[in-house]
């Protein structure tokens, strides 16, 4: 009893301790869950409803306190976030006093959040996806859109050209992922950003949209939008116009005041936006007016080490040494060799062998042909196609499949449509395989008629290879040993190559032999040792064209008195045999002949089965199967004859049949043997004679 009383007393003390702890924790919860700015009567009431009852056990109390602590932490974080969002939303809109923020947010957000926290539930997807306004969405996703998306959206909205901006930003992202910081400025050539007028429009819009913003606020916006990292400043990158920056002639005052000071790196060869937009035309203009301008190759050996299949031979009339024009104010392109090397590196990553196309003059036979390195020929003639080094990702060829370039692997060839097509090795192999063996290339004046040339050439070549010239094709110039220069005019651009392909005589010769072999195969006589199917198939092939259709055959079979066959092959075979043995003009004649065949079969074999013959001529009724067996044993062809026909024939000859009711088992076995005999007779049809 005393022990029990002590035990009870200890329990009571423990309960009291717990109760006191709970009261403290509850107070803490109230303190944490209801901050001053969220102090709302409703929230407190709801919170009190979610209180954990003290009647629960010790473990439950401990767990509930832990859970409640976690909830408190989450709520605290959420309140902080919401506070910051409200600040940001105000920042994104109009400048307002920071004092209003808690008042605005305390009405909407905390009510829901407290309820959610009391239920210990994560916000549903539906609630998360709900977008009340664009501003709300942007403020909710401000972290992810902090650097790039907001900048991209801002520019795209202002300019109205989202595709361009997207391309621009995606390219910047890919560059950022790559570690080449020095190369960032060297290849904005891959996209076409805004031109000058577009930027002016953007600036105008910016002025309209942000008229009241002070510099400090603008700085804060810029800080917000672009962050502290100014290296990847899209704004700067887009505004880096070396010519304009250096000349300082056409700088926009407003933009200077608005934009932060941009330090232009003259050594960083970049395009202006307008140049990039103009792109090819400016390049062409540059090339035509000023020629190609190159920066000096800083390390040519590195290019060679990379085994680049590129070397540029500038004609002597042009600049012998590539020169650098660093501070050119012209609108032409500044194409640095660093850029080129970058491009080469970049393209080598893609395992693509970029070749600058080689142009050979008509008199290129004078050049040494033994060297395997490709010889390039750059021509300054306006009529010729110049190599655009900034776009040397393709070879200009007249056709996708050039026989002379087929040895290359992975060459991007661009036909007249400039649609980049990638030619893989497998295709090339196939094309090589299908390519004629002998190709003779003739340089022909394009003014001349190809037929005349062909006639003259054929006269020459026929002496060597008779009946070999069949096709003529024209293509661009290529270096080959089989070149015959018909007319080596000096006028460039007015020539073309006539490829004289050797006619693939093997193909022509193969087809007749193939047909011959097939026809021989069809005409091969069926040997008796072949299987039934192999016998029937050639017979079908040889006779199917001239054979009547199945319905006619069936009708004829019925008239003649033959068994209906299961398939046409068998019918045709039987028909062939019948036609050979019973040459009659009509089916009725054949039926008469077939009857006579049966009669002769028995008459000529009277002594073979004296007992059965005695039964027959003594009018003894016999079983039909008995007679049929004997007939089949005399000639297997009778197995193909219909039973009704044989019975009819037997009636005409006075043979009396009886129904075999005495021994049904015998008749069953005989019917089985009859079906077996049918297959045998079909197999023997080809060889045995029908003479009884």
């Amino acid at each position, binding site marked *: 009893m005393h022990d029990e009383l002590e035990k009870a007393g200890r329990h009571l003390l423990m309960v009291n301790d717990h109760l006191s702890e709970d009261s403290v924790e509850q107070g803490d919860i109230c303190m944490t869950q209801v901050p001053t700015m969220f102090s709302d009567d409703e929230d407190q009431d709801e919170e009190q409803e979610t209180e954990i009852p003290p009647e629960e056990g010790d473990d439950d109390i401990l767990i509930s306190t832990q859970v409640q602590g976690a909830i408190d932490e989450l709520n605290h974080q959420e309140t902080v976030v919401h506070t910051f969002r409200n600040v940001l939303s105000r920042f994104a809109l109009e400048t307002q006093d920071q004092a209003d923020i808690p008042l605005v947010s305390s009405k909407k957000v905390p009510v829901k959040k407290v309820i959610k926290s009391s239920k210990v539930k994560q916000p549903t997807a539906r609630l998360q996806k709900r977008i009340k306004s664009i501003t709300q969405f942007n403020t909710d996703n401000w972290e992810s859109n902090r650097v790039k998306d907001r900048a991209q959206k801002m520019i795209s909205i202002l300019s109205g050209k989202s595709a361009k901006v997207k391309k621009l930003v995606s390219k910047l992202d890919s560059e950022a992922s790559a570690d080449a910081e020095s190369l960032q400025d060297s290849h904005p050539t891959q996209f076409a950003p805004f031109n000058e007028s577009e930027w002016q429009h953007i600036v105008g819009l910016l002025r309209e949209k942000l008229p009241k913003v002070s510099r400090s606020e603008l700085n804060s916006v810029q800080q917000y939008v672009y962050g502290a990292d100014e290296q990847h400043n899209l704004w700067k990158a887009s505004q880096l116009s070396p010519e304009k920056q250096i000349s300082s002639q056409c700088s926009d005052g407003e933009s200077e005041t608005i934009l932060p000071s941009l330090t232009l790196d003259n050594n960083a060869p970049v395009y202006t936006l307008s140049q990039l937009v103009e792109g090819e035309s400016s390049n062409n203009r540059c090339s035509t007016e000023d020629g190609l301008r190159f920066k000096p190759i800083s390390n040519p050996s590195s290019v060679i080490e990379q085994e680049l299949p590129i070397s540029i031979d500038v004609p002597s009339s042009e600049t012998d040494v590539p020169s650098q024009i660093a501070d050119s104010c012209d609108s032409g392109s500044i194409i640095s060799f660093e850029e080129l090397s970058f491009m080469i590196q970049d393209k080598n990553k893609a395992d693509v062998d970029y070749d600058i196309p080689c142009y050979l003059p008509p008199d290129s036979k004078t050049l040494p042909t033994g060297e395997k390195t490709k010889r390039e020929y750059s021509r300054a003639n306006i009529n010729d196609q110049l190599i655009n080094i900034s776009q040397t990702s393709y070879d200009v060829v007249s056709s996708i499949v050039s026989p002379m370039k087929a040895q290359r692997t992975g060459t991007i060839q661009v036909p007249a449509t400039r649609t980049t097509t990638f030619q893989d090795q497998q295709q090339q192999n196939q094309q090589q395989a299908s390519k004629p063996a002998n190709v003779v290339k003739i340089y022909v004046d394009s003014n001349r008629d190809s037929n005349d040339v062909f006639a003259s050439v054929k006269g020459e070549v026929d002496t060597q290879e008779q009946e070999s010239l069949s096709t003529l094709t024209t293509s661009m110039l290529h270096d080959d040993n089989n070149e015959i220069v018909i007319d080596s005019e000096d006028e460039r651009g007015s020539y073309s190559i006539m490829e004289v392909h050797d006619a693939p005589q093997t193909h022509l010769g193969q087809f007749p032999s193939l047909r011959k072999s097939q026809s021989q195969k069809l005409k091969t006589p069926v040997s008796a040792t072949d299987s039934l199917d192999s016998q029937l198939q050639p017979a079908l092939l040889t006779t199917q064209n001239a054979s009547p259709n199945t319905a006619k055959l069936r009708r004829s079979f019925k008239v003649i008195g033959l068994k209906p066959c299961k398939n046409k092959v068998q019918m045709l075979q039987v028909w062939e045999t019948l036609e050979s043995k019973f040459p009659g003009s009509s089916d009725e004649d054949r039926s008469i002949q077939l009857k006579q065949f049966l009669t002769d079969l028995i008459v000529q074999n*009277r002594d073979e089965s004296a007992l059965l013959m005695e039964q*027959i*001529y003594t*009018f003894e009724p016999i*079983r039909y199967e008995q007679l049929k067996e004997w007939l089949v044993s005399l000639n297997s062809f009778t197995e193909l004859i219909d039973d009704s026909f044989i019975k009819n024939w037997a009636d005409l*000859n006075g*043979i009396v049949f009886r129904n075999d009711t*005495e021994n049904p088992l015998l008749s069953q076995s005989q019917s089985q043997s009859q079906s077996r005999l049918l297959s045998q007779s079909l197999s023997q049809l080809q060889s045995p004679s029908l003479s009884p």
Partner: protein
Amino acid sequence: MSNKQHRVPDFYCSYLLRSIPKPNSFYIGSSPDPVRRLRQHNGAVRRGGAYRTKRNGTRPWKMVCFIYGFTSKIAALQFEHAWQHSYKTRFIENNERLVTKKNTRNGIATKLGNARLLMKHPYFDKMNLHIRFFDRLAWESWELNKFKVDYGLSLCEVDEAVLTDESQLDELDELNLERIKAFYEDQMAQESSLLQRYQDNLTYDQKSCMICDKKIDYIHDEGTQMVGFCSDDECDFLSCLSCLYKEFTKNSKQIIPKSGHCPNCHKCLEWSQIVKYSTVLREKLIKD
């Protein structure tokens, strides 16, 4: 193959009955004993099926004719069936068929025309069937050959004395039965006398085949040997049936000959009659 040796029946006929009170009612049947069968039809004999002829007002029946000479019961039944189902029998060619529908009520001319067509068929023609008339109108219709069936009348046997007359209506059925009975008994008597002669010829004298010169041991033979005789009373030709068969089919490509000339007396012999007597003799030998 049954163990029982085949024997051509002594007499088997397929007959045509005509109702005396209803002349448009006919009945076609077959029987080896037409007298007994006719009595059955007319109710004189209680036993035996005669359901169709029992109908009210049709009795008595008279047997206007019968066709006899069948080489087997099966053949006689085939003829009967074909005669009854002349609209569909295979023994009548479609282009010669007189009746094409089942329930066509045909007269005596059609019945006889179908009989003529059936007898014309090679199957029955080989059997050398005979037709015997016991009614004047039926015989006249046969003679008339309304449907012009091309078949010889040489096998038509008619005795003017046995032809019943319509004037003798009261005794018509009895007269018909008597004359049928007379004919039947006469036939059986002829058959019997012939067979007795052949048997005596074989029993009391050792004979050899007059064709192959093979000895015919009728006494010790167990029925494996079949002998053919000449039906002429004066001719004692005897041979193996197989030899005679070969003789008859020597210059022809027939499997079963219809007739042939006796090698001895050159009388035209019906093959079916030769076979008939040969099979009967063989059966007697086994029985003995």
